[in-house]
């Protein structure tokens, strides 16, 4: 799991490198239509961060043997993750540019698309772990699946922080 995450993290590094590189090569403003609006993205970032916190809380539960805390934690994480994905969809539709308009548009949709795909994989993993959790598979000292799915979810979360900082924030200062 750790090495899968490592190689996926590198994927994001190269994606964001491309964004920064093309940004530095531009003659005109970057993004061409001015910095992206934060009105949806900022609260959405908070939602994703919260979901990671809730997951940790649920995991802490099973470490003490509490099935209920684990189940509630997983369920809430799933709900928050799903809300994030929906808001991200709205964000996509509210943009004035498309993936075809210029390099910025292509990078924006490709990078957030890659991240969105990771969110969906994270949600699917969460669903599988959830089924086990409701069946009562896990115990205080046997819950590696919970830990691994959690690692993945935190990775998705951290990757978003970098995507957010690069796509939304960095052009404001560059």
């Amino acid at each position, binding site marked *: *799991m750790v*090495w*899968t995450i*490592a*190689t*996926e993290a*590198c*994927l994001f*590094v*190269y*994606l964001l*490198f*491309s964004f920064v*590189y*093309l940004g530095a*090569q*531009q003659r005109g403003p970057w993004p*061409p239509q001015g910095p992206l609006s934060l009105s949806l993205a900022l609260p959405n970032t908070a939602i994703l961060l919260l979901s990671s916190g809730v997951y940790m809380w649920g995991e802490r539960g099973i470490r003490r043997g509490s099935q209920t805390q684990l189940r509630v934690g997983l369920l809430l994480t799933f709900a928050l993750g799903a809300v994030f994905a929906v808001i991200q969809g709205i964000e996509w539709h509210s943009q004035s540019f498309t*993936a*075809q308009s*210029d*390099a*910025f*548009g*292509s*990078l924006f*949709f*490709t990078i957030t698309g890659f991240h969105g795909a990771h969110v969906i994989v994270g949600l699917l993993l969460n669903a*599988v*772990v959830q089924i*086990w959790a409701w069946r009562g*598979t896990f115990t205080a*000292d*046997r*819950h*590696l*699946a919970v830990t*691994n*799915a959690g690692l993945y979810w935190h990775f998705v979360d951290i990757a978003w922080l970098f995507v957010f900082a690069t796509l939304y924030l960095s052009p404001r200062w560059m």
Partner: protein
Amino acid sequence: MEMQSTVSDAPTETLRRIWETPSGIYGQLATVDHKTIGKRYLVTAFLFLLIGGLEAGIMRAQLTRPGEHLVTPEVYNQLFSMHGMTMMFWYASPILSGFSNYLWPLMIGARDMAYPRVNALSYWTFLLSGIFLYTSPFLGQSPNDGWFAYAPYSLGLYNAGLNMDFYALGLIFLGISTTVGAINFIGTLINMRCPGLSMSRLPVFMYGTLSASLSIVFALPALTVACTFLFLERRFGMHFFAVEHGGSAMLWQHLFWMFGHPWVYVVVLPAMGMVSDIIPVFSRRPLVGYGFVAGSTIATGVIGFAVWIHHMFATGVPMMAMTVFSGFSFLIAIPSGIAVSAWIATIWTGRPVFKTPMLFSLGFIVVFVIGGVSGVVTAAVPYDWQVSDSYFIVAHIHYVLVGINVFAVMAALYFWLPKITGRLLSERLGRWNFWMMFVGVNIAFFPMHVAGILGMARRVYTYPAGVGLETVNLATTVGAAIFAVGILVFVVNFLWSIRRGALAGPNPWDAATLEWTTSSPPPPYNFAVIPTVGSRDPLWEGRVIGEAPSALALRSTLFSGPVLDHGRQTMTTSAIDAAQPVPQSMPADSPWPLILALAIAATCYGLLFGAWWLVGVGIAGTIVALAGWLWPTALAGTPQSDPVTVGAR
């Protein structure tokens, strides 16, 4: 406490029943036996060497005489692109994975790799991605922009066919195979070594593969990103490389070489490692400077990667294309200097025996040094301006790649095939094989340096008469033909040996490492008991070896130990010093890796032809396969093997 036994008393029938793949088609398709997978890798990659060689042969026939019209310029473009891609991606690295897959568990006293089903997935995706790439010649639309596919010629505006879509999708597909394979190697090296086999006792080959695997994990995503961009730009009207829309053709070069530079180590470091393990056996003494060689192998991978990335961010000049191999030569100068010194010192202070594997190892050193010198020459920048994109570069890359990769692979085939087939190859044919390849390589590629200095441009389908290029080109073609016959001698020798070759027995070369303790070929369970290792050369313990005044101390227990016959079990130990052994349950044969690979192939073909229903089928198949893969084992397992880890294996 586990049941202890000696090899002769071990319940080998039970073990065989547990580990053997049932015969029949289902068994063949579902097997996760690392030995079967390793053999398949070796055969498939060797076939790609032959196919790549066939393409080279057609190119050489075209270039034998000036003004020849055997192929059109467009076909020539496709030929050198397919040749470069096939050799670099579908032969050079996978053949090394084949050795690793077959040998690693045997070298570390284990019964399988860490993730056997991932291993099967790695092979199937390798095979299917190769089939995917080789669909292109049947449509007459093979990649035609060289193996590094520079923009803008790769873009739809200039290159409208499916050619470069095959390139982009084929490499993304192969990347899945390479990545999961690398993760499997890393996991295996960290967890699966038998008790006592600490990091300081590993064969150098394993360090080479570890270093290559780390490079893959960190660098390969750059190629995946580049190819994704390329595909999106070509097929979905997006903009990454086209300058008119705010893109940059340089972005492709950056991404490609962030990957391409480490990739050179990927095809070289494991090969150097194999030679480091073969030379001591035929010098009849342990490797001189083991620590330095192992350490510099890791350092090359890590430092080379870091320095290259730094280059990328700091300079951004469009020079990396031509200096990549020479930059590589500079960087690798120190570790390869260390390695070459260690090999020569080992031979010098040993009592060398010149069997075929040793001949190829020596040929390897010679070609390695010549290739290194021409590389250092190109690393001088003004000189580089003079020769770049000429045949000097083609000569250099072939010395490096044929020398360091192909010769090492030949040495390894002669050395380890007897373990795999149980029979020795003919020494007589082996000598013919070696001398034809050695002479052929030099006749073929040395004159290419001259052609380059005379100004012959690479990637051009012909050249004019009367400018002094006739002789060198004729020589090159003759040399290539001799080299090709050398390869054919190997094929004949191999086919002869599996029927008539002398029986090898467990240890035909009187080598020192664990793979030589089992029978040849090894039983399905590899080891009847899990050995305990106490030194770097366990099979030489108790004997006077090399210059040592007295016998090596007896430290290992190779022929008695835990049996582990409660289902598929092997031993895992701690990461650095291989202590605290814990039995680990391993997954059995499974059809899901193949189904998953087929689903990915369907997705790739769907994307290629724009057949969205097929993409849908592929994605649905992927989800079903992953669910099937993870599901049945969910509730099984020992306390150490929780659902997801076992599921992933």
